[in-house]
């Protein structure tokens, strides 16, 4: 069950400060890295929300993100809609997709749930891969960032856009935390712990699971719109299942079911990727080794393990 402990708050603030400082004092390349981290972290929080707290390990979070990005691109570039309205449509599309996946899979769990979400994600991928009007496998460009000049904010400035993205990451974290500590979120944890007993208590578990997936889709959709606005370009690669797998890796690396762990996982993965790939193309080997280490040492992940040691230490102090 979720609790926003002081340790989690401190870790969250430290992670956000690190990203802000890294972007502020770094080069253009550093800001690109920070935005890559932020987008991955939002997706990872979104996945931790349903996998870590609801036991729903999804392999279609990339698809949720990609659908939001594509609908944003389609509405704003192809149909000439306003950017805010297009973003709204993009988010709605991601929520509807995630809600449908959640509804259909509400009665299955474990490996079958994973396979079903994989199938849904790959279906979405195939649709955009084949859809020539939206560029098909070439992808599609021409997306624009929000125009906030009325508030004196120019999102086309790299650093300002980085802070904007950082703000969205914080927003997603707060939204997740508030939902997870609500009656709804507690029920979700209850379903994760013992779905049958929740039903015996009169809880419609299918409804809670569907809603959780829809909320997760909303957060993944925010990552998608951010990604589209960041590079001004989208491609079906956003939806492919290996991206969803990478997000799951980030969640496990950082600490599943901790909500702040995924941010740590995203920072580590992206930094490792960029520092190791300077020497070798086989950086995945090193990520794999770290992951194996993380799983073998209790499966709590980097933050999860730290939190475990901290709690143990605190109990020792009281005893």
């Amino acid at each position, binding site marked *: 069950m979720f609790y926003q402990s002081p340790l989690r708050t401190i870790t969250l603030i430290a992670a956000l400060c690190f990203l802000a400082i890294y972007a502020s004092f770094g080069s253009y390349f550093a800001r690109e890295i920070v935005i890559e981290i932020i987008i991955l972290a939002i997706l990872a929080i979104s996945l931790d929300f349903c996998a870590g707290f609801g036991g729903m390990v999804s392999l279609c979070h990339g698809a949720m993100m990609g659908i939001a990005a594509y609908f944003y691109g389609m509405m704003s570039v192809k149909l000439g809609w306003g950017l805010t309205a297009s973003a709204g449509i993009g988010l709605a599309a991601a929520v509807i997709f995630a809600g449908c996946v959640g509804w259909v899979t509400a009665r299955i769990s474990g490996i079958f749930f994973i396979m079903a979400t994989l199938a849904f994600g790959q279906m979405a991928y195939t649709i955009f891969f084949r859809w020539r009007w939206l560029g098909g496998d070439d992808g599609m460009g021409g997306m624009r960032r929000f125009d906030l000049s009325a508030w004196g904010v120019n999102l086309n400035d790299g650093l300002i856009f980085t802070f904007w993205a950082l703000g969205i990451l914080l927003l997603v974290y707060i939204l997740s935390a508030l939902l997870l500590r*609500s*009656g709804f979120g*507690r*029920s979700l*944890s209850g379903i994760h*712990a*013992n779905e049958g007993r929740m*039903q015996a*208590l009169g809880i419609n578990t299918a409804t809670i699971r569907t809603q959780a997936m829809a909320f997760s889709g909303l957060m993944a959709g925010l990552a998608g719109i951010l990604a589209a606005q960041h590079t001004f370009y989208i491609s079906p690669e956003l939806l492919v299942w290996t991206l969803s797998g990478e997000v799951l890796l980030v969640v496990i690396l950082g600490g599943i079911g901790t909500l702040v762990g995924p941010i740590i996982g995203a920072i580590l993965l992206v930094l490792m990727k960029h520092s190791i790939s300077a020497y070798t193309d086989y950086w995945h080997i090193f990520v794999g080794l770290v992951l194996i280490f993380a799983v073998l040492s209790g499966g709590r992940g980097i933050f999860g393990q730290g939190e475990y040691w901290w709690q143990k230490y605190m109990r020792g102090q009281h005893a």
Partner: protein
Amino acid sequence: MLEVKNLSKDFGGLQIIRDLSLKVEAGERRVILGPNGAGKTTLFHLLAGTLAPSQGEIRFDGAAIGALNAVRRARLGMARSYQKNNLFESLTIRENLMLAASAALGKSGKLFRDPRHDAAVKARIDEIAEQIALTETLDAQVSTAPYGIRRQLEVGIALATKPKLLLMDEPTSGVGPSMIDHFHRLLNQLPRSITLLIIEHDMDLAFDVADRISVLNFGEKLFEGTPTETKGNAMVRSIYLGEREGGEHNA
């Protein structure tokens, strides 16, 4: 309150419940007796809606509930405690009771409001914790708690919903005499607004608590009557209580 008419359940060719009829009045304490394999737990599955009957009718509070699933029946005020502990293992005792209390008080689907800080939920948790004598251990992790405590919690989760009808499947199975005594007192203290249907193997407890006793064997109702009538019935003694005269303890 609860009326079962001509209920049958078969798995393939095997008939577990045969043409069973029962009538339980509001506020009644009804004990179900029967040897292993008599169909007692299956009967609870049929009543709670986790299994569908092959034939027959179930009425609860005057309404036919045969077509309702387990979730809908729970919402009508039916709760159940299990023969094998069926807890939220990864959570604390307080969290277990909180889930049950929030469900009963309609706080389970609320967005953005933490049931932990809800006055009604808190009051319910404290009340039940006191009833099941777990006030001191509320923040213990269920997965590492001793068996006796887990057994108390099993009943506590069901009680926390303040049901109209409580189905208890061998609440004292596997616990020692002191806890049976405590449980005995707890049952006597429960208000008559709760109707109790109990599967129980502890004879002292069963005969003392019960208003009426139904004896099942091979899925059929063999006998039904007051505790005194049950004790005096020769057929019940031979089939359920076995050869031992008096049959005070039959595990």
